Structure formats: C-alpha cells, structure tokens
C-alpha cells in the first residue's frame, strides 16, 4: 500500500478549474517534487492532500484512509514566516508536543534543535534569527511531532540563492536521517532535480500531470554530471511545452 494516494482528483474554484484528474502514488519514505509554473494548482494540490481544502472530485488517501482535515501526522512547512514570533526557538519546537510529558518534550526539543543545526539558540527569538535559521526552526517544529509525511510549499522561496543551496543540502541530510515521506512543491526546475526521487510535472492551469520523471541519480548529486543535466533538460523542455499550450 502506498503512503499517499491521490485518485482522480480535480479542483474547481467557482468556474475556474484549477486541477484536473490528478493521479499519483507516493511510496513511504519517498521524496516527491511537484513542479509547475505559477498558478498551476500545485499549492492547492498540497493543501488538499494536507486536509485544508476539500477537492471538487476524487480523493486523497494517506495509508489508505481518506483525508478529512489537517492532522499532526502530516505537517506543513511553509516559508520561514510560519514560525511564531512570540515563542523562543525551543518553545516553537515544542509547540505541537503538548500531549507529551515534560521529560519527553525536553528530549525531543533537544534532539531536533540539534538536528537542524540550531544548537545554542534555544532561548533566542525568531526576530534574532536569519531567514535560513527560521526556516530550519520551522522544519524542527514540524519534525518534533514525528509526522509520517512532510509537506513543503516552496519553503526556500524567500531565501537568497546561496542559503537556498545550503538549505537543500540540510533538508536532504534530515530526510535521510529521519526517512520521512516528503511532498515538496516548487517552481524551480533545478531544485526539483537536486532533491527529488521523482518529479511530478504539472501543466499550466488547469493543472494536469504532464509527466512523472524518475530521478535515478544517487545522493549526493553532482550538479555537473551528464545525467543530472540530461534530466534537468527533459523537464525544461516539458515545462516549455506546457507554456506553449
């Protein structure tokens, strides 16, 4: 049984058709990128799978169970603006842990603060952190509740390009350590090839799956390797076609 199953999913806002007939299976522990131009419905797709929006047709299932609403087993990571400014780093990480004992809380907070590389900043507040650090804080907060799936919606969009490269490496390291299933929405072709096991290419609105590309390069990925460039160019021409429709 796949971890995340999307069947015949369509979405319409009023008369605007945003997504059409999406079918996708995601294996446990897989890193899947959903790639497409602005307005193609990729964020909407993520919101539906995350339980924040009901689809107009079709369904999304997690572990075979239809998605009915937001759930701590599937955590969204937004851009770094999602961290709570009135809580310190450790308080943010502990945010979802209210059902745990104090000891368990402390242990998890320590573990994930360490994992994302924010050790030493436990008592700091988000306004004292850089954009990249806030992003890592948000990832730590998400991981602390031990979700099955992580949804990331263009999380590195607000960061400068150097930080973005570092954050991608960080994310891959954390993914390999924690083995979470990840759905990652992006408009950045390079990013998708650097990160994903599979890239789902969506067309422009209404979003349909144009292609699902298997990225068969092992990590760490060499950005100059011929296969990387080949795969990137496949997607590039795929997206280029989409713009001409």
């Amino acid at each position: 049984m796949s971890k995340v199953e999307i069947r015949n999913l369509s979405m319409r806002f009023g008369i605007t058709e945003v997504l059409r007939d999406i079918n996708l299976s995601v294996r446990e522990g897989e890193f899947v990128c959903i790639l497409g131009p602005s307005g193609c419905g990729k964020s909407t797709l993520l919101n539906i799978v995350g339980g924040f929006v009901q689809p107009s047709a079709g369904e999304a299932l997690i572990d075979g169970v239809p998605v009915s609403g937001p759930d701590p087993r599937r955590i969204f990571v937004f851009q770094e603006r999602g961290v709570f400014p009135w809580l310190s780093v450790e308080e943010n990480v502990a945010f979802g842990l209210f059902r745990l004992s104090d000891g368990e809380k402390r242990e998890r907070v320590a573990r994930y603060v360490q994992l994302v590389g924010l050790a030493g900043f436990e008592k700091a507040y988000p306004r004292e952190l850089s954009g990249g650090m806030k992003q890592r804080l948000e990832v730590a907060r998400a991981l602390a509740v031990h979700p099955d799936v992580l949804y990331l919606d263009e999380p590195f969009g607000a960061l400068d390009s150097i930080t973005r490269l570092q954050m991608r490496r960080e994310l891959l390291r954390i993914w390999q350590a924690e083995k979470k299933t990840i759905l990652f929405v992006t408009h950045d072709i390079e990013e998708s090839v650097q990160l994903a096991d599979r890239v789902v290419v969506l067309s422009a609105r209404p979003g349909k799956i144009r292609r699902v590309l298997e990225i068969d390069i092992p990590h760490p990925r060499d950005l100059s390797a011929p296969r990387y460039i080949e795969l990137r160019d496949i997607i590039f021409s795929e997206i280029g076609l989409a713009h001409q429709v």
Partner: protein
Amino acid sequence: MAAVLVLAGLWQLAVIMTGATIFPSPGDVIRGLGELAGRGILWSYIGDSLVRVMSGYLAAVLLGIPLGMALGWFPTLGRIVNPIIQLLRPISPLAWMPLAVIWFGVSNAAPIFLIFLAALFPIVVASMNAVHNIPPMYLQAGRNFGLSTPRLMARVIVPATLPPILVSLRIAFGVAWLVLVAAEMIAVDSGLGYLIIDARNAGKRYDLVVGGMLLIGVVGLAVDSMFRLVADKAIEN
C-alpha cells in the same frame, strides 16, 4: 526637566511684560494649587477623576476586547454588527451627554458612561482588526498540530493579537482621559474637570484654571507612561 524650566521662565516673562492681570504667572499657579492642597481638595479631586476614568475604561476593556475579537472571528457576526459600530463611532462621546444625564442623572455614573463609550469603540475596532490580521499561516499551523479551538485561542490567537490590542488600549486611555475632563465640566461636582470650570465660575480663579489644566496634563502623562512601559515589555515578546 530643563525644557520645563525654560518654558516656565518664558511664561513668567510673558506675564510680566504684557502686564497681564487675569492670566496667572507660574508662581500664581503654584500658590493656587498649594492652597487647594492645604484644603485637602487637591488629592481628592485627582482621586475622583482617576476613579471615574478607571471605572469607565476598565468596563470598556473587559467588554470591548472579547466583543471585538468575536466580531473578528465570526464573519457573519462581524458583517451584521460592524455597520452599527461604524455609524456610532464618529459621534463624539460628548454628544451622548444629554442622554447620559437623562439615563443616569447628575451623578458619577454619567461621566463614567461617557468614558466607557469613548474607550469602547477604539478597543472594539482594534481587537476586531487584530483578529482579521492574524497571518492565516499561524492558524493553519495551529490546526495542523491538532489544536482544538480553545487551545488555538490561548496559544495562537491571543499572543498574535496582543501587540496591536495593547497599543489600542493605550490610545483608548488617552481618549478616555480627554472625555473625562469634558464630562466632569458638566455633570459632577468634584474632579479635575470640575475644578477648572468651577474655578472660573465661582471666582474667576484663573490660577486654579491653569493649575487644573497642568494637573490634567501631568496625571494624563503619568498614566500614559505606565501604559507605555507595560506595552513595550509585552511587544518585546
């Protein structure tokens, strides 16, 4: 402090140079206030004014914050009630004076009611807007982590709306203080506003008129400074 002394010096000079007989000098004012203090009136007037303003103001805070937040949280409620608020808001609280006197008589309740009204509107509007302006990401994250609505309220909505609401509380106090003085000029027989109007009517005591004005300024400033301390501390977090 130095600026105050310079101003006082200029004031004294102006009085002397223009040969003013009615407008008091700084010395006159201080002597007049001293006289009031001696008769035991000064502190009781200040006390009465503070009690009135605090009663009306606290009532406005206790009602206004929950009401405003409810209007912000429940869109239908907001749609129904908001036009009423927008209609009543521009009406100066002082225009309610005749109604207040009919309803409450010439007593403490009348000015307290006016103060309550004056402080209520800014607090309700600010609370409503604070809820509207909560970044949806915060609410989504709260729901995502499995927070029930009461928990969401306590752990996300309250902290997220606290800074703008605190700012509005300070502003609302300023409005309340302004209204207090005017309300006291008409409806009661004690307090700083009453002091000013009575000093003029009962004996053309302009030293007390100016003294009363200065007291109003000083006490208002003192309370506002306390507000600022509290608000700044909270906004830091």
